[in-house]
């Protein structure tokens, strides 16, 4: 068996130092998150071209997860279904007009969650949420990609 030498000691010290720095870094992050007050926030989540079955079968009161890390928890509190309209060019006159697209629906979900609102951001579990952000909402009976179209405090 190889003898323990000074190089091994140096490696162990480096690993311990890196571990200590990482621990301190994470500890600071956690402290910041803990000191911020969480409150009930909401965002409106638009699924632009959902099939009718999908639109109908997304249930209100479903617990969901969302965000980049898929760890932020929320609940669908309301649902709006309307015909999906897309901008279609008129090739003779030269303008765009909204036209209903058959068998496609625009679904807008109101999702409420416990998050943090600061002067600069709305966050859920460290992920910032903004209008225009594409994200995935998934849970029992739903797994859809869409866009946040509004955000704010729920109360």
């Amino acid at each position, binding site marked *: 068996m190889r003898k323990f030498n000074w190089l091994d000691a140096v*490696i162990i010290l480096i690993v311990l130092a890196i571990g200590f720095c990482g621990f301190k870094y994470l500890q600071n992050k956690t402290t910041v998150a803990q000191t911020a007050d969480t409150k009930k926030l909401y965002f409106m989540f638009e699924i632009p071209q959902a099939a009718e079955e999908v639109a109908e079968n997304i249930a209100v009161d479903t617990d969901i997860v969302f965000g*980049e890390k898929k760890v932020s928890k929320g609940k669908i509190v309301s649902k709006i279904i309307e015909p999906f309209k897309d901008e279609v060019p*008129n090739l003779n006159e030269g303008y765009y007009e909204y036209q209903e697209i058959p068998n496609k629906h625009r679904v807008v979900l109101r999702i409420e969650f416990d998050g943090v609102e600061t002067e*600069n951001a709305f966050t859920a579990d460290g992920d910032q949420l903004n209008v225009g952000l594409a994200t995935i909402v998934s849970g029992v009976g739903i797994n859809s990609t869409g866009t946040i179209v509004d*955000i704010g405090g729920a109360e």
Partner: protein
Amino acid sequence: MSEKKKKNNKKIAQPEVKKVAQPESKEENVEKKEAPQQTVKKKIKFNWVDALLIVMVIVLIFGAVSRFSGKIQEITASTHMVEYKVKAVGLRTISAEYLQQSMGMQFNMGEKARTDTLGTLVDFEIAPALSNIEMADGSIVAAERPERYDAILTLRLNATVNSSGYYTPQLSNIGVGSNFIIKNKYIVTQATVIELKEVE
């Protein structure tokens, strides 16, 4: 030296030569064989862990040298207040409304690896979004997109500057044509720098 002394020296030297030449006992033989093995044991063997450590140290040194030397050091030399305009296209109505609430607010890069400070919103213009349509007769016209808007945002930033350009405080280059995701508290969108100038 006298001749007597020279003779004595010779006499003393002769038995030493004989000693070396004398046949050795078994024990002495064993000692001689073991001696080289002991010197090998004392040497520290160079193994892959040592090699890894050396490589790590070299990489760290190289990284530190490249980070704190050359052009980047020049970049940190001076700062100037700059105003630059970025264009975001195809915003929804609600995003355009949130822009009005964003006056005086700070914008940042909205990319995973980069959250550089991009400056404070000091002005913005909103116009209906235009998109090209290729007509039935083959001509191309710019037509307004319903419920979509193009916005030009003016951001003010205390930028780091050197001979090769303007940089955010976190050293991302800003120049006409730069394209990045911008975000503030309310909105996130893709934007392109279309104008940049120094201000006092």
